[in-house]
């Protein structure tokens, strides 16, 4: 009897993840290697434990996912969505996703403070990624440790940077502003450095991405997101180098949200609970090097060392508020176009 009581208590504490079984749920998230790895490390175990089939809808970029949610507002076909925090904030403000708290999703109590706060009233953070400098290890020696390495005249014409409104461009600008002026909002502190590097930049719109341009021997330096960069590093047998530079980095945060008026709400909550659980967070971090948002996740030291949450890197993370960035974005975009890109003189 006592065992049964413990089992019931455990079941209750675990929330909807175990309480709901069967049925199906549709998740909208990123395509490609994110889908492959997320399916193997998070969704397959969820299906095995709950009996709920997960249909993975490849959403493209976060903006495209928001477009899908807007188009399906009257008749949602998606139940759960994983998207960038700024786009998720828009979806939250437009009522496209549910407001959610620890009473509805108890696992939220296990998340770190930033993960709880970043979703606002809606879904919490499910992954942390961060901006890194990627470089060609064959062409750049010794291994660079600072963003400043890109300003070396030896690499003129061999640099790929993303310009705003792309968020990598915004993130890079914020890091330079912080490094040169003490505050990430201080655009004036970043502009001289950006104008200085502009003529050395081959492209402000790396296509298909910086990693590929390095592998194709087109550029030596680019910016990238850590999780993908780490995978490309492994896949290229170390040709691509990944650095979290000393000047700092910023998080790119993905949140998980329940779509408003979801047709499979119980299963959606169960999936979100599982995705945020310590086990799922550990598995995904060890596979793809996204930082875990669940403070109880026992990630191996080797995997943690390749995220920004490693003890030696934590102090380098600049506390950027993406909601505020959205307000600043237009002004930054204009100044980039008028002062940086126009100075690139190619």
């Amino acid at each position, binding site marked *: 009897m006592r065992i049964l009581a413990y089992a019931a208590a455990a079941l209750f504490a675990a929330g909807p993840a175990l309480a709901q079984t069967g049925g199906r749920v549709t998740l909208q998230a990123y395509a490609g290697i994110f889908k492959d790895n997320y399916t193997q490390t998070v969704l397959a175990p969820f299906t095995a434990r709950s009996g709920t089939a997960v249909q993975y809808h490849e959403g493209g970029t976060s903006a495209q996912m928001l477009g899908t949610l807007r188009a399906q507002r009257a008749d949602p076909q998606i139940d759960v969505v994983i998207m960038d925090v700024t786009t998720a904030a828009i979806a939250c403000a437009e009522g496209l996703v549910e407001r959610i708290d620890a009473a509805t999703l108890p696992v939220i109590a296990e998340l770190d403070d930033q993960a709880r706060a970043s979703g606002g009233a809606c879904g919490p953070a499910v992954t942390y990624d961060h901006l890194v400098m990627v470089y060609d290890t064959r062409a750049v020696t010794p291994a660079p440790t600072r963003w400043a390495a890109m300003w070396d005249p030896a690499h003129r*014409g061999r640099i790929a940077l993303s310009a705003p*409104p792309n968020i990598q461009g915004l993130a890079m600008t914020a890091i330079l502003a912080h490094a040169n002026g003490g505050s990430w909002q201080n655009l004036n502190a970043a502009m001289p450095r950006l104008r200085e590097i502009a003529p050395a930049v*081959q492209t402000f719109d790396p296509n298909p991405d910086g990693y590929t341009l390095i592998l194709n021997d*087109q550029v030596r330096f680019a910016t990238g997101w850590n999780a993908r960069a780490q995978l490309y590093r492994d896949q290229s047998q170390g040709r691509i180098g990944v650095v979290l530079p000393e000047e700092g980095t910023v998080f790119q945060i993905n949140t998980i949200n329940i779509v408003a008026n979801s047709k499979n709400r119980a299963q959606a909550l169960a999936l979100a609970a599982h995705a945020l659980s310590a086990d799922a967070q550990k598995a995904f971090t060890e596979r793809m090097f996204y930082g875990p948002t669940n403070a109880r996740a026992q990630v191996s030291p080797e995997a943690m060392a390749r995220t920004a949450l490693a003890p030696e890197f934590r102090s380098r993370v600049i506390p950027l508020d993406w909601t505020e960035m*959205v*307000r600043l974005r237009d002004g930054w975009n*204009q100044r980039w*176009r008028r002062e940086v890109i126009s100075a690139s003189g*190619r």
Partner: protein
Amino acid sequence: MIGLLLCLPAALILGLGFVWPVALLARISLNRTTDMGAMEEAFSLETMAKLVEDDFTWELAWNTATLSATCGAIAVALALPVALLIRSAPPQWRGLLSLMAVAPLLVSSTARIVGWMAILGDRGMINAVLAWIGVVDDPVRLINNWTGVRIGLTESLMPYACLVLIAGLGRLDSRLEEAAATLGATRTKTFLRVTLPLAAPALAAAFLLVFVLGVSAFVTPRLMGGGRVFVVATEIFDLALETVDWPAAAAMAMLLLGSLGLAMALRGLVAKVAR
């Protein structure tokens, strides 16, 4: 009555495939975007007014118009000799030559641009040859700038110009050129005084078509511009998919559509007056 009924399927397709989406776009352009990026339902011209008042919108319009006009004119100029050659070729060869002229259309524009990247890139074929023969030390910048976009766009527009010119020149009465030659006109004079004036409507139609295609071109400026080339289509993409400002993206698309409509109407008016 039968005529109207026969038009119904086409009208339905046009209505569903063009009029309805454009109407939706027009509706979205009347919405507002809040400071934090959310879209608010509204019936306001605020977004449109903001765009019109912004100098950058006019810079985009100028960039787009000049790029399309330049590339369109070059494409037509390059397509004209091709069309003339096909016209003068033996009838049994014309089909094959026409097919060759428009063959690039059989390949996806993205694939063609990837090819251009390999040719024009800083470490591409042309720069490799120039470096090998010792003409340059630093790569010549042929891509990730306006030069690259002009080359790529001209190439992508040429098959359309060929298509229109082959059809237009095919209808010219060759006896008029023969008469000019019989009366002593040189080949150059015949071309300038007879062929070219007769081909003028086809040339105008070809230019109009490639100009319109150039104005709405997105893939070439995006992939070959290296983030340095700003035209209306790339801006609409950024507004819709980077900043998620749908009302502004829709308003800009409506402005583009309106401008093109106006240009077409003016062209019709000019043609009417000229007749």
